[in-house]
């Protein structure tokens, strides 16, 4: 899969919507510059992650607990930085005023999702 398509998938996973071609090109440039090499196993995981965002969320969450320095995570991290340093996605990173109750409920909900995806991800990482 080309890096432009990778960027779109990562953007959907990280911020819930695809990014502009400009940001996708920036990701492509960054990947080229950083020369990230995936191992054979990482490549298999990456190919699966690129099939849909469910697998991407699971594999990233699983690796966060089992191999947080994985080169797959490095690619996701790079895209996260690119999205944050853009006008297009800055609102996804700048906190908004909210009630404490709202924050606590949101944290519980995110935590539950994170645990669910981490369990699936650990299984996938172990199986592949």
């Amino acid at each position, binding site marked *: 899969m080309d890096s432009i398509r990778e960027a779109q998938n990562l953007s959907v996973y990280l911020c819930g919507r695809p990014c502009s071609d400009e940001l996708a090109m920036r990701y492509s440039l960054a990947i080229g510059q950083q020369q990230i090499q995936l191992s054979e196993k990482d490549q298999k995981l990456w190919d699966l992650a690129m099939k849909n965002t469910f697998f991407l969320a699971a594999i990233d969450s699983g690796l966060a607990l089992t191999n947080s320095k994985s080169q797959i995570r490095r690619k996701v991290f*790079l895209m996260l930085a690119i999205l944050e340093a853009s006008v297009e996605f*800055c609102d996804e990173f700048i906190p908004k005023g909210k009630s404490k109750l709202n924050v606590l409920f949101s944290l519980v909900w995110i935590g539950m999702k*994170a645990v669910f995806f981490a369990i699936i991800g650990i299984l996938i990482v172990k199986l592949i």
Partner: protein
Amino acid sequence: MQDFDYIVVGSGATGAIAAKTLVERGKNVAVLDAGIWEEKYRNIIPDQDWLTIRKTDTNQHRYFLGDNFEGVVWEESRVGSQLTPPRNYLKQSVEELMPFVSETFFPFESLAKGGLGGGWGTGCFAFSTAELEKCGLNPTEIKKAYNQVSELIGISGQHDDSGPYSLGEIENAQAPISMEKSIAKVYSNYQKQKAALNKDGFFMGRSAIALLTQDLDDRQSCKKYDMEFWADKDKSAYRSWMTIDSLKAKPNFDYLPGWLVLSFQEVDGWVNITARNISDNSEQTFRCRQLVLAAGVLSTARIVLRSGNQMGIKLPVLCNPYSYMPTMQLAMLGNEPEQFKTGIGQAALFHDPNKTNFDVAQSALFSYRQLLLFKLAKETPLGFAFGRQTMKLLQSAFVIAGIHHPEVQGPDKWIKLEKSDNPLTGDTLTGEYLLSEKEKERMDWRETQYRKALRTLGCFPLKTIRTPQGGSIHYAGTLPFSDSDKSNSLSVDGKLNGYKNVWVADGSGFSYLPAKGLTLTLMANAANVCSKI
């Protein structure tokens, strides 16, 4: 060969003040400096506040991430790896030109114009009389010099409970900057819990910072744009290069960038200085009547050891151990982001268990915003999408306490210069830095006390992270002050023993390192040394 009356080596916090003091005394002065500078990002950063930039500047990726994505650091290999792209020039060429090899000591040095002062956190802490005496400094002279430096660089602060530890006897400070909400909340909690905290030896206040709240010459008062880690648009935060730039207009001053000073030799009342051009590798000799070394303690040590042909001789070294605690201030959860604030530490929490203003630990308190969220997301054990959402919710509640511990000399804290195949200098500085078990126990105890105090202030510590030795970027004590004239030591007025016309104006002479940031005292000492030469 070029001749000068006075040559100052280095343009950092001490070199700039040394040169300024000499120039104001009417001396003819040249500063020899590597002088690495950055223009790529400096001019593309808008003169706007952080929130506006984030929402409007389509070029923000260039300076936030770097054109080569140097700001997206995956593996933090060494001290300084988290510098922002516009500050990356501070470490440029250091590994090639000033190699340092150690398994236990990881200092951060700079060859930039303005030296490490280009990234200074601006905290100003006047040492107490007892601390100055233990450093080997003259308290009366240094306290006078504190006021001179304060007038020159512009210090703001307040004589509150931090007064004895920070402003000391400085009388010309500007009014303090208004606090951001998050730190103001901690300060308000301190006022409520003051009696109990004071009983345990904790004192908090709006410590002094080299940040203008009133205009000074061509520098403007702080606009609270919250961009201090990226730009110096209003010049409100003092940087040493500002002094160098202002001196360039003086007829009795020369700034000579591009030179790495290798060694010196005294010949017939002159000091001959050998320097290497960092662009074309050529060597040149400069000559002066008086040489002032202010290259930073490790570089000064290199020059002194090389000049005395002292390969393999061990020199002592001091570096404050540094740890930091990310904490959550739950009361700030869900708070609306502030448009105008400053990310510079505006308050400090001092631990003075004996209430003697000696053996004090110091913690600056910071919020987290300027350095972007993606770096925080990396620190969570979550997938990045969940890390982003979590950190976005928690960011307003983060308070980071950076704790400096006081430091004394020890047998396993040393550096030495060894011959090597380094093509530029033919040598490499090596060293070791190990704390004794007793010192580690003392740190453990301090950190436990800090965790308790922070909880009392409504900030719940998440973890304690100790940086590798060298991480505090506070170095001193390689050529300790001495009453005798033994080699590799300084007289109390800063003269390098064994030489007639060589002076040291950086922290090489300090025999003790209080936990309070030493930059103000370094500058005061430089002013004091150069007021007498």
